[in-house]
């Protein structure tokens, strides 16, 4: 009865390959088109995965150094950048080759090439060897992702100016590195280079690092970064960048308008990402763009009935896990199900040292929207496990509706925060109350106990953290 329909997925990132695999498992004849030779997109090739590999290497170095304090001396570590790079590339290629094999196994046709729309139901694919082919389809899922935003107003083209992709190539450790942008990517890569010996300066336009996260959580990582880097300049920007024979001369300007010229060997620009919606021939379809973002509804449908879109190219938080979730929705919608993008929370994790993770409502956002909340914190100084790990400056906090006692948001900073945040996301999705978290037995001794103890703080009865009872 149900005739097989052709689905083309453009873009092989974590949204695109997920969409292709799911579409195949729903019985669609599926083709995945990507410019790279293997699926994986930015996430696997030059984003999440290689950056986490490098962060792991950096963490080993930090741990080895800090081991001295507890009586283990490894001596001066010998760092072989080339070997680290090869290891990182091996990690990436293992994962991307795995995806290629998955395509074969699942019957997804993978085509390397650049796709351009010829109409609402047809694309042309320009292959690397110059050959062009055309493909007809019933439905297309657009998952072309995003790319790093270049520094506005500074047209300098130089190998010394890196975006995140170039920084992840990890070719050399510059002596002096300027990181423009104090968001997740800037801080992650900045701390990798700083750990491997670069003297790093971080410039951020807003008054806080990691804009979007609550300040009390950021403070912990900022304190550590201040020690690790040369300087962190908030409410500042780069107004000029000139190439000299021996490096780059950057003019930094703070909010008071004071300018300062500083020398760097390299500059890493990590100020955001732009959707890849140009040069796709979208004008030949009915897809609508707004400020470069493909406009979709909650069912991931664009204005063109044949085309759906997911991931960074539709905007919102540009995160791999958001894209993968949207992929599932898009395919279910194609399969006739009433799926919708309707999450209660999209977690964000900065894999800094220590990690910062948050989901749902933040205290800052609640204040901005005028939502009455009670924020409760459990400092990791009161956690036995944190002490045994030598990491006592972490913190776990819950944002709670004082009326219904529902958990509206969760945030944490400390090692493993990126793993532990999922418990909070589940609580948010399930509409859990703070009582539910307090009365869920957490294993001892673990850092996850801090979630339970933060919930206990709400009721003023935390075992390990005494709060004088004021409000309750």
């Amino acid at each position, binding site marked *: 009865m149900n005739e097989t329909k052709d689905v083309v997925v453009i873009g092989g990132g974590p949204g695109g390959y997920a969409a292709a695999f799911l579409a195949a498992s729903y019985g669609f004849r599926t083709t995945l088109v990507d410019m790279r030779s293997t699926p994986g997109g930015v996430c696997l090739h030059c984003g999440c995965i290689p950056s986490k590999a490098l962060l792991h290497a950096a963490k080993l170095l930090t741990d080895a150094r800090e081991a001295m304090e507890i009586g283990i001396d490894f001596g001066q570590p010998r760092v072989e950048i080339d070997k680290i790079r090869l290891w990182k590339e091996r990690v990436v290629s293992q994962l991307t080759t795995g995806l290629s094999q998955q395509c074969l196994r699942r019957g997804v046709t993978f085509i390397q090439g650049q796709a351009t729309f010829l109409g609402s139901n047809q694309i042309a694919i320009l292959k690397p060897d110059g050959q062009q082919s055309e493909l007809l389809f019933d439905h297309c899922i657009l998952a072309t992702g995003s790319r790093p935003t270049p520094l506005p107003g500074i047209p300098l083209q130089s190998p010394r100016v890196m975006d995140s992709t170039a920084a992840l190539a990890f070719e050399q450790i510059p002596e002096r590195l300027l990181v423009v942008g104090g968001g997740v990517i800037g801080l992650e890569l900045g701390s990798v280079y700083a750990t491997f010996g670069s003297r790093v300066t971080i410039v951020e336009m807003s008054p806080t690092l990691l804009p979007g996260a609550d300040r009390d959580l950021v403070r912990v990582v900022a304190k550590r970064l201040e020690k690790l880097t040369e300087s962190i300049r908030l409410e500042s920007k780069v107004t000029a960048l000139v190439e000299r024979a021996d490096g780059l001369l950057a003019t930094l300007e703070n909010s008071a308008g004071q300018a300062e010229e500083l020398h760097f060997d390299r500059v890493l620009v990590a100020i955001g990402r732009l959707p890849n919606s140009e040069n796709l021939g979208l004008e030949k379809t009915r897809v609508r763009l707004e400020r470069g973002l493909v406009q979709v509804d909650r069912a991931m449908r664009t*204005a063109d*009935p044949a085309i759906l879109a997911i991931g960074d190219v539709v905007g919102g938080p540009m995160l791999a896990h958001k894209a993968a979730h949207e992929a599932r929705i898009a395919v279910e919608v*194609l*399969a006739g199900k009433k799926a919708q993008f309707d999450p*209660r929370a*999209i977690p964000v994790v900065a894999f800094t040292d220590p990690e910062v993770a948050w989901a749902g409502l933040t205290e800052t956002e609640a204040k901005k929207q005028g*939502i009455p909340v009670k924020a409760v914190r459990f400092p990791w100084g009161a956690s036995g496990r944190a002490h045994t790990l030598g990491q006592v400056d972490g913190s776990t906090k819950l944002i709670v509706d004082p009326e*219904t006692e529902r958990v509206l948001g969760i945030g944490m900073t400390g090692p493993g925060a990126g793993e532990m945040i999922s418990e909070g996301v589940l609580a948010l999705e399930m*509409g859990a*109350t703070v009582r539910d978290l307090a009365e869920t037995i957490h294993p001892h001794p673990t850092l996850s106990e801090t979630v339970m103890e933060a919930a206990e703080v709400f009721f003023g009865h935390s075992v390990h953290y005494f709060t004088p009872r004021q409000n309750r």
Partner: protein
Amino acid sequence: MRRPFKLPELGDNIEGVEIIAVLVAAGEKVAAGRSLLEVVTDKAVFEIPADEEMIVTEILVRSGDRVGVGESLFIVSPTAADTPPATESAIAVVTTESAPPLPSESAATVPVVEPPTAATGLPKGVLVPAAPSVRREARALGVPIEQVPGTGPQGRISIDDVRQFVKQRNLASPERPGNTQPASPEGPAIPSQVALPDFTRWGKVSREKMGPLRRATAHHLAATWSTLPQVTQFDQADITPLELVRKRLTAHVEKAGGGKLSLTAILLKIVAGALKAFPTFNASLDLRTDELILKQYVHIGVAVDTPEGLIVPVVRDVDHKNITQLAIDLATLTQKARTRKLMPEEMSGGCFTLSNLGTVGGVGFTPIVRHPEVAILGVARSGIEARFAEGAFQPRLMLPLSLSYDHRVVDGADGARFLRWICEVLEEPMRIALEG
């Protein structure tokens, strides 16, 4: 302040509409009262007007979408100067239902587009507590999760709450036949159809899509026909004297602003009297409680032939109005029906229906009862007939009438008495004043 423009309450038992056409473009400034959408319910096609002067910033629906009362249709902003910059993304909790698989050939669809998501990617404000599995179930049943009362701790909504909500909604809606099926967002099931032969074997054919109103009528009538045992009776009334009075007084009514003094207006008054005299005809049957619901009011529907199809506006409180007033009401409603300006509340709440095909012609017909009403009066074309009276054949103007009724509520003899009562009053118009 940007705000969502939601589907307003449209009258009793109307839970949602299907959108036929979006009549505005994104970014368009509209005056108060300007039509924004053309929509259809199972009763009629009508338009949704703007409640104030506004700018339509986003369109959240497209033609073919079914939306429920209270669901967002547009994001609108006031025309005043205090409009916030566009960067502040105000996101409404939009519960646009996801459509079935997208037909790639579907034409002229208006984009369903949501405002660009904020940095968090989430709607603003506090969201109702319901697990993803529960929200999925609600979507599958076509229930806006925000409307479901949660019975869990602090109002948490469970799957049972969603199912209970659907059950309650169905019980509260007597128009839905069966009352046992969960509300299908796709509307009532299409009556099963015996496989059709290939007509092209015998000659050329063309296919034409049924309009939404025709489709709604088809489904409603199929449901009524298959569940309601009905009987039709016929009678005739000698309206020779009535016709003389009607012609004489029509100018009088016209002067009062009521258009012509039509037979329909007079019949409305007579039927109101008959409904008072025979209360079981002004009733509805509740099979779940084995009760007859007797109505203490008299609202009568009048079938109107329009280019889009049959529409039945309802004349309110017929028993409290004189015939001139009824003629005025009738003219207004008919005009509105033909220009698609009728609002749903002007088509609901009828106790009985009058269907006058006299101006079109015909000897007689069997009208179909409009559930949950129990009877309908059909009027065919009057004509001069020879009647034997006072020892000779005389030319009399005879009006053929037919009465269909729900045989579960009305017995044959009562049906005959009801129709006879109407005929007798028609023949002796003075009785309108005596008994009306």
